[in-house]
């Protein structure tokens, strides 16, 4: 059994060590927010934070996440309160189909952790590895900037 710290909760999975983390999160832990897109680190739908750094859960071995802190979108909510990024995504209606949103949120969360005052170009550069097919890019950028402003105002 592999023991994993996901969003501050220790959980165990019977998955083999080579199992990509994304399947453990979704199928064993019922955490559906981390999504399967390409299985090859090319689209970013599966991005989670491992010890605060964005990682592709579609290729990260479950065994390699043991002993580290894994954060997913489900962990952004604190005490029932949505994260500023989640609020901002809703306020800007920053999605169409919404499938890419989880990866965007996690990548953006990592950005705001390291750079609380990004400008438009910095947000775009950070989100460059994330694919969106519906054309919601500009709304997503506005949402991240809005969240940054809200977090600073607090």
């Amino acid at each position, binding site marked *: 059994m592999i023991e994993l710290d996901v969003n501050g909760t220790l959980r165990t999975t019977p998955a083999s060590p*080579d199992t990509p983390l994304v399947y453990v999160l979704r199928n064993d832990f019922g955490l559906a927010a981390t999504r399967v*897109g390409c299985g090859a680190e090319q689209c970013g739908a599966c991005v989670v934070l491992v010890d605060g750094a964005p990682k592709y859960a579609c290729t990260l071995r479950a065994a390699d996440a043991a002993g580290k802190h894994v954060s997913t979108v489900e962990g952004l909510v604190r005490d029932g309160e949505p994260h500023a990024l989640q609020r901002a995504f809703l306020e800007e209606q920053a999605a169409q*189909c919404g499938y890419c949103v989880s990866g965007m*949120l996690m990548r953006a969360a990592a950005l705001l952790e390291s750079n609380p005052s990004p400008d438009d170009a910095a947000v775009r550069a950070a989100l*460059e590895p994330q*694919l969106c097919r519906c*054309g919601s890019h500009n709304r997503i950028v506005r949402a991240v900037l809005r969240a940054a402003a809200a977090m600073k105002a607090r």
Partner: protein
Amino acid sequence: MSAPSLPPTLARNPRLGRWLRFRRDGIVEVHSGKVEIGQGILTALAQIAADELDVDPSQVRMVPACTARSPEEGVTSGSLSIQHSGMALRQVCCEARAIYLAAAARALGVDATTLLVRGGRFDAGGGRSTSYADLADDALLDRDATGAGTPKAPEAHERVGTPAMRLDLPDKVMGRPRFVQDLLPPGMLHGRVLRPPSPGARLESLDESKARALPGVVAVVRDGSFVGVVAEREEVALTALGHLRGAARWHESETLPDETRLAEWLRAQPHETTPVASRASASATPPPAKTLKATFTRPFIAHASVAPSCALARWEGERVHVWSHTQGIFNLRADLAIAFALPPEAIVVEHREGAGCYGHNGADDVALDAALLARAVPGRPVRVLWSREDELAWAPFGPAMAVDIAVDLDAAGEVLLWRADVWSNGHSSRPGRAATPTLLAATHRAEPAPPIVAINMPLATGGGSDRNATPGYDLPGLEIANHRVLAMPLRTSALRALGAFANVFAIESMVDDISHVRGEDPVGWRLRHTADPRGRAVIEAVAARAPWALWKAREGFGRGFGYARYKGNGAYCAVAVEVELTHRVRVTRLAIAADVGLAVNPDGVANQLEGGAIQAVSWTLKEAVRFDRTRVTSDRWESYPILRFSEVPAVEAIVLQQREAPSMGAGEAAMGPTAAAIANAVFDAVGVRVRDLPLTAERIAAAS
């Protein structure tokens, strides 16, 4: 006097209770046959229902479409959902409100006209009231719509026409399970399919032993060249799939055309020619002083949704339940019924949302995959997920097209006769319309369904490759013909805007060439040939925005304009862009204006316009399905790149609200005008006309 006519999908499904159900807990269930595909339709339909019933939007619950109980409304496609489902629901709600109003009056012992209806309550004053919830009784709506009653006038709308927050986004932003990919019913197994390496491949031999020996593998299914595996765990299914791939021997053949000579290939194939439009000049036509001739092409284009297609299926005896992100639950059911030789009633197809859907993608195909695999494990649900490679190589493509245009001009450069010949595969191979299934796996089984040849729907219902082949401008003479190519080495079907993308790109490029010959401002030419005031309004709206009006000529930059009325009878849309040319083409700014009639959710319309425009920038600058003579080679994001954040232009979307005009779809109007505006901006920047998409720096250099 004849009975009032019902909206078409209501006439097909007249039972009111099929559309609407009031519950004791105050929730109003709305059952539409249209489905959410990322376009926000559920939100707009909820706005319509809330207004017509006088309930709070929070009381409205949009129930996922299901063949077991939803109204049959065909396919969610063609930007028709508001026209169809919206108008049907409006009438249903209007009649249901009258029925409940009468019931409320009886219950309260007052005259119905004295009741105030608000927030789902019927108020008689003096503290006496009742509500839809109090009166909820399915028997009340167990009757057919009559067409009686008049839906509310536009000025009485509180929700319709006002920006609304999308109902589905909270789940998606909070990371709650919402997509078909997220379903996890108890006892669920995981399925994967081994797709052939190429369209012409046949399975010669397969040693299944290594896959079968893997602990946790429950079944290996083989039916001709269709191969799949079912396992207790998803990663085991993937490992087993790898074993099967290594143990499969295929016979492959060169069935694909030369990707560098698609126009020649299209014209050389057997084809079916149909006239699209013909108009002789009313006056005696002078001989042309000049004829402009050109061929415009677009390649095969992939849907390239961010999520791989997915479905679940569970068999109980001779009955199967399927969960699918299909655009047409009844159409899919019809093809599954043929595939399994079952009566349609033995099959339930229930919709669950998938990722963004821009046309006929792999959703229906994966549903058959799931049903085939689940049949091996009766009683247990099986979830099948395609791989990225399956998605990019096996989902139907938007067909390659060639558009030959010849325009006769008089001595002043005015158009005398506009001729066009459109060459393309058909734009629909959707399920549910033929005697044999069009689903992918059906063509791989031991007793294969015959190969399908994509069709075009009749022009009256939107057409296919001929969509927008006829210029919408006031021109004296027209001769437009469509040539449907009957050889189909790559599976083609509906992709956002269908033929309108290439046709509008071609027409609007030609219009700029004509303006250039005349030395006329291209916006001026368009206005001079557009009498329709609504068309003129969108052209003028965009011409007044920054990318056009405030534009300053400078080295390496250009501006371009494009306009069309989608389908000739749908949304009016104009686009202006600025491009920057360096070692690549970049769209820096884009303004888009549209008149979609009454925009039920103006923010939803703006989102669709902007999203459509950005996707069209991606198609225009970057996208082409790649293949050699045997295999599709663009089966990864590396080989099928789409637009990224750093390449996305600043976009201003303008919705010209028309509260009094019928709603028209918004999802597809942006595509053609955006492509044309980009090509025209490149011409403006460097004087080079690129007529083949994608419009790359290499193509500009080659055309110089």
